[in-house]
């Protein structure tokens, strides 16, 4: 491997073997929209439950995706699989729950939340959604019903905004329970023993750069633990090594289409396209490794996308380095 004396911050360091990803209480899966982080969270949930852990996949988006992905035929309100549940956190509901707990007066929170002025204040106020969402996660952890929480973080902007809110609120609010609670949430998010952030990227320019920035900032100022990144949807070699220049060869011959076969030109077009995509992925995979200086877990591009539990199972095994 590399000479340790030469390894700067951007070159891979020799590292101790990676800790098992599921060996914590909280895994926060983050990534730009379209990187497939929901599938990653669901896949991990599936494998964790198969290992006998009690798992909850927590969704934070407007819609619920996990039940449909994991168990398309499950009845709402029942576990998706033995040991596996999913939950979508609605910020308004989470806020109502929180206020009820704080006020100790049933109904008051609901009345207050129904107040039009308060709704408008909430609509305009940034940050509280992230905070109550993380607060709810904290609460779930405290209740101890699950061994593992897998949070599918919001795709908005940087994953950091989401995780940095407790700190920001902590500094904007001078005293009182809110400040204390924000502190608890912040502690949870930064706990290196029990929490890890799992960035999901694609091996393409924008997601790779953004992931690198995220990791840098995590290291430098936010302090949320991260120990590996996922490169999702990585194309596999389109043709075997022995005919590595297949697209070039096909481009040289001139065979018209027949009833049973596309023309050599069309075949060459397909081969060239798939080869370019493959090479693009390889190049950015290298960049991702170099820029983040973290181990990168590759997940294969599934030609049809994630279509059901079998695909998730495959992805989950790859994520955890289990036999497939």
């Amino acid at each position, binding site marked *: 491997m590399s000479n340790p004396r030469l390894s700067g911050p951007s070159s891979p360091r020799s590292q101790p073997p990676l800790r098992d990803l599921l060996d914590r209480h909280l895994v926060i899966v983050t990534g730009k929209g*379209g990187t497939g982080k929901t599938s990653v969270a669901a896949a991990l949930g599936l494998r964790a439950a198969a290992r006998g852990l009690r798992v909850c996949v927590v969704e934070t988006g407007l819609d619920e995706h996990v039940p449909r992905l994991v168990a398309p035929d499950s009845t709402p309100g029942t576990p998706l699989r033995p040991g596996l549940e999913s939950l979508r956190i609605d910020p308004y509901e989470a806020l109502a729950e929180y206020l009820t707990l704080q006020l100790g007066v049933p109904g008051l*929170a609901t009345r207050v939340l129904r107040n039009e002025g308060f709704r408008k204040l909430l609509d305009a106020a940034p940050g509280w959604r992230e905070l109550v969402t993380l607060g709810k996660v904290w609460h779930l952890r405290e209740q101890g019903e699950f061994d593992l929480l897998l949070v599918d973080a919001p795709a908005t902007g940087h994953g950091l905004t989401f995780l940095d809110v407790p700190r920001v609120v902590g500094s904007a609010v001078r005293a*009182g329970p809110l400040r204390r609670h924000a502190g608890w949430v912040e502690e949870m998010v930064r706990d290196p023993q029990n929490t890890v952030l799992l960035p999901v990227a694609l091996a393409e320019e924008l997601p790779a750069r953004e992931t690198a920035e995220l990791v840098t900032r995590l290291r430098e100022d936010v302090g949320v633990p991260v120990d590996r990144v996922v490169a999702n949807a990585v194309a596999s070699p389109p043709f075997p090594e022995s005919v590595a220049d297949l697209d070039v*060869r096909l481009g040289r011959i001139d*065979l018209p289409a027949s009833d049973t076969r596309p023309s050599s030109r069309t075949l060459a077009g397909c081969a060239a396209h798939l080869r370019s995509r493959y090479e693009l992925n390889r190049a950015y995979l290298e960049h991702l490794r170099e820029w983040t200086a973290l181990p990168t877990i590759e997940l294969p591009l599934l030609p049809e996308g994630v279509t059901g539990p079998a695909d998730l199972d495959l992805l989950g095994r790859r994520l955890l380095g289990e036999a497939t």
Partner: protein
Amino acid sequence: MSRAHSPQPAGAARAQAPGASPEAGPEALLRDRRIVVTVGSGGVGKTTLAAAIALSAAREGRRALVITIDPAKRLADALGLGALSGEPRALPADRLAEMGVPAGGGLEAMMLDMKRTFDDLVRRFSPDPAAQERIFANPIYQHVSDALAGSAEYSAMEKVFELSQREDLDLIVLDTPPSKHALDFLEAPERLVGLLDSRVVQVLLHPAFAGARFGFRVFQRGVQQVLRVIERVSGLGFLEDLSEFLLAFEAMSEGFRERARQVEALLFGPQTAFVLAAGPARESVAHATRFLTRLEETGADVAGLVLNRMRTWPSSEPLPEGEPDPAARADLAEALANDANRTGDAPAAGDFDAEAAADAALTLAYGYASMVRRDERETAPLRDRAQRAGCFVRRVAELPRDVHDLEGLDRVAAYVFAGDPERVSDEERAR
């Protein structure tokens, strides 16, 4: 959340316009509009699309400007945005000529600097320097404008309005921040105005409040409850900061309120069109479908749908189905073997396995054909939905390399504006 005074759905308005074609093509955007907004979830190519639209307008001889949010580095370079800049930069004449922009056409680009724009807003609408300083010093403002999510939308809208005042611009193309809550950025101005108008906030704005801890007893019960709840959870300090913040804000609220109204009129007026970008992934299609509905509900004029990254068959030949025919493999293997003999381009003489090569070529093509079919199938409901709404629908093929450069912009522009997808695919083939 429907808007209080929704105009009729834009699709309906277009259908009724006398003489209007049922589908105004994307070229009409460049000709007839002042503002084009690209919308969609993250990672679907909004930024590239926005840049491609602006470039195409410039090539038509218009003076265009594109506001991007988070461009890839090479796209930023291609647009002359090497350094981060909150100010528009015009591309120099020689660069424009290189890009095929005729005399008279212009292209400016800028990257939105969210923090700065919000500060500008405060500077503009503050009645006096003291009020301005109070806002800047307020801990809540510092966090609202800097660290917390949400201010991006206010700033984007503000910047567009400011630019719309410039008479030397024919077209402004706005790339929007990726938003989880579909229309955050459109609703932002209205939300802020709604906030300043609300009774709870009016109470917080009451000058007596800051000094009199229990002073709000005089107000109506609902408001009292809200304030007590906030106080109990956040401590009185927070309410004081909030009150101070809102007070300072109130001082500039008239200007702000007026501005929000103007922005709204601009975005929902006839000079603005929205273009929805989506990708073929299932999640993206679902998101775009909901987005389209929401946009229509708000009265936005959704002119088109651009499907990015569609895996596309490289010729006009029919897509093969099922398994490769063994007989069809034979003549391909023969042709490959002949080629290897002719060129001597084999790993080593006699080492080239033409059978295996033919096999691999057919397998990958059949595999690719099923991906092409899958993307068509998955996007069909969205395309239908958009067409029914009177949108133009264009596909942009998944490009062999990253599109974040000028060449990429060219190709995206060709797919969107060439109008004839077959022509594009012929060009593709010729490459």
